[in-house]
């Protein structure tokens, strides 16, 4: 009886002990939300919704409107998505459907190499290599194009296009590796059926893509979440000018960049709180995008796991996310 109780006690200790660390994990996430909320109260109370409707950012006058930053963050991330999505899907299809076996491992390694290059190195390359090229490209455009609203702006090189390009390069490996995992979960029977009906390779691939579409949208959204929160590389190439413009060649600003640049120098409490409020919103947006993308990927892989997963196999979602 006593021996039995001792076993129970130690099991309980094990559960509580490891549970405490799981609690730390939960507490960190809850703590981030609570701290950001608490530290931005002054700004929330002072400006209310006006904060998200005005575009004047004047720390000296104590006047803060966040429109240029949220605009810049969304614009640069969507631009990056437009550039990177076809490339990411192309890579995923190539690696999952077309690639000869001997080439797959080195290629996967190389694309994942992109993901492991630090953001600051992208930024450095951006400033000294990409930005001058973007400037050359802009100067090389004929005048009538440079008069169009989408392409007007000073020939400085640090602008929305540079930011979009560097973000696109950075998120390709994330989207493509998850998209590849998702494609791998498409049952072979789907493709075999397509081939049996006389499909060409591309037609069979389209069947697979169609089957995996939900998960692929999830993979792309995961990349989008990365782009939204990316700080250093964007800060270094976007020009840091608080204005919401359509033009690709205008220097602009993002939420993460303004925090990186001004947080340390902010002396007024209101300025500091306004920056933290931007952080709070950035946190909320990335949280929503990430949760949505994970639900999509999970939905996709769960179906397949129930149907075809061999015992002991790593579920694709686990190894990909």
């Amino acid at each position, binding site marked *: 009886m006593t021996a039995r109780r001792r076993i129970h006690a130690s099991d309980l200790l094990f559960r509580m002990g490891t549970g405490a660390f799981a609690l730390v994990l939960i507490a960190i996430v809850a703590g981030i939300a609570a701290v950001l909320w608490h530290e931005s109260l002054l700004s929330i109370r002072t400006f209310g919704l006006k904060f998200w409707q005005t575009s004047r950012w004047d720390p000296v006058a104590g006047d803060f409107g966040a429109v240029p930053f949220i605009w810049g963050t969304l614009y640069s991330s969507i631009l990056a998505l437009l550039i990177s999505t076809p490339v990411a899907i192309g890579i995923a299809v190539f690696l999952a459907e077309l690639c000869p076996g001997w080439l797959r491992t080195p290629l996967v390694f190389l694309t994942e*190499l992109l993901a492991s*290059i630090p953001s600051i190195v992208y930024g450095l390359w951006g400033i000294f290599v990409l930005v001058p090229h973007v400037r050359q490209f802009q100067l090389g455009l004929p005048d009538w194009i440079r008069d169009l609203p989408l392409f007007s702006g000073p020939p400085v090189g640090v602008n929305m296009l540079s930011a979009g390009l560097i973000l696109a390069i950075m998120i390709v490996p994330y989207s493509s590796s998850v998209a590849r995992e998702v494609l791998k979960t498409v049952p072979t029977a789907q493709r075999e059926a397509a081939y049996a009906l006389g499909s060409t390779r591309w037609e069979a691939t389209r069947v697979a893509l169609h089957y995996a579409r939900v998960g692929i949208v999830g993979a792309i959204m995961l990349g989008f979440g990365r782009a939204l929160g990316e700080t250093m590389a964007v800060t270094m190439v976007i020009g840091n000018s608080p204005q919401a413009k359509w033009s690709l060649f205008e220097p602009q600003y993002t939420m993460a960049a303004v925090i990186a640049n001004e947080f340390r120098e902010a002396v007024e409490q209101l300025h500091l709180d306004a920056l933290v409020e931007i952080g709070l919103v950035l946190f909320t947006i990335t949280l929503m995008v990430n949760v949505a993308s994970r639900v999509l990927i999970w939905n996709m892989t769960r179906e397949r796991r129930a149907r075809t997963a061999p015992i002991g196999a*790593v579920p694709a979602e686990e190894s990909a996310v």
Partner: protein
Amino acid sequence: MISRNTRRQLVSHAMSALCVAAVIIALVPVGLILSFVVAKGIGSINLAFFTQMPKPVGETGGGMANAVFGSLVICGLGALFAVPVGVLSGVYIAEFKGTRFAFLARFAADTLNGVPSIVVGVFIYTIAVMPVHQFTALAGGLALGVMMIPVITRTTEELLRLVPQSLTEGALALGATRGRAIFSVVLPAALPGIITGIVLALARIAGETAPLLFTSFNNRFWSTSLTHEMASLTVQIYTYAIAPYDEWHRQAWAGALVLVTLVLICSILARIATRRLGRLQRGA
């Protein structure tokens, strides 16, 4: 007039070609970035880079000894914070999966993984820098630790799940308690993989800049104090990159080369280890 079938074949080949083009488009930046970092950095890498302090503006030479040392210290602190929390929370999630608390912890790990690094910086600034009115190396380590935790948690969880159930059952049948079975049998079996995961997480955070900007800040001088600001390779590269001096740009490229080399070595080692493990697990 092309027949319908020929057209379908042509479309098929064209799409395959587009996919190949996508791979090439993605690989060109890797090649460009790496070749630039090597080309620009190699000329400035010498012993002085690792042994000397930064020189003031206008003087040539000097190095980043303090920043290299600072990066090692801050990353080490990060690992110190993150490894226990990451591994043990991973054990909990794997062992008690199906419970609501484990689901919540796993959700927290995924959420934390997606939190922008700059937001982590603001969070740590508020809880660890503001109360003491001092940028500290400890705060920097804490920030990097927070970024590392979710990676280690998820790696541990996945690897524990790969350990055959029969091992646990064997230990339990011999009369081990659940905790004993995990710590003496299951965890050691998964350990090589977990260490690989930790190395990968280290490689990832070694390149982080944003969380350090207002936690460990930067320091022009040699400092070993954990309670003062400390230089790091990444913040130093950033400071140099946005300054208008050619000599500093040169140093920034050298710093980038050191950083990329470190990260690449870690990734390659981890990859080799993973492959070995995979072969072991398949029973070869």
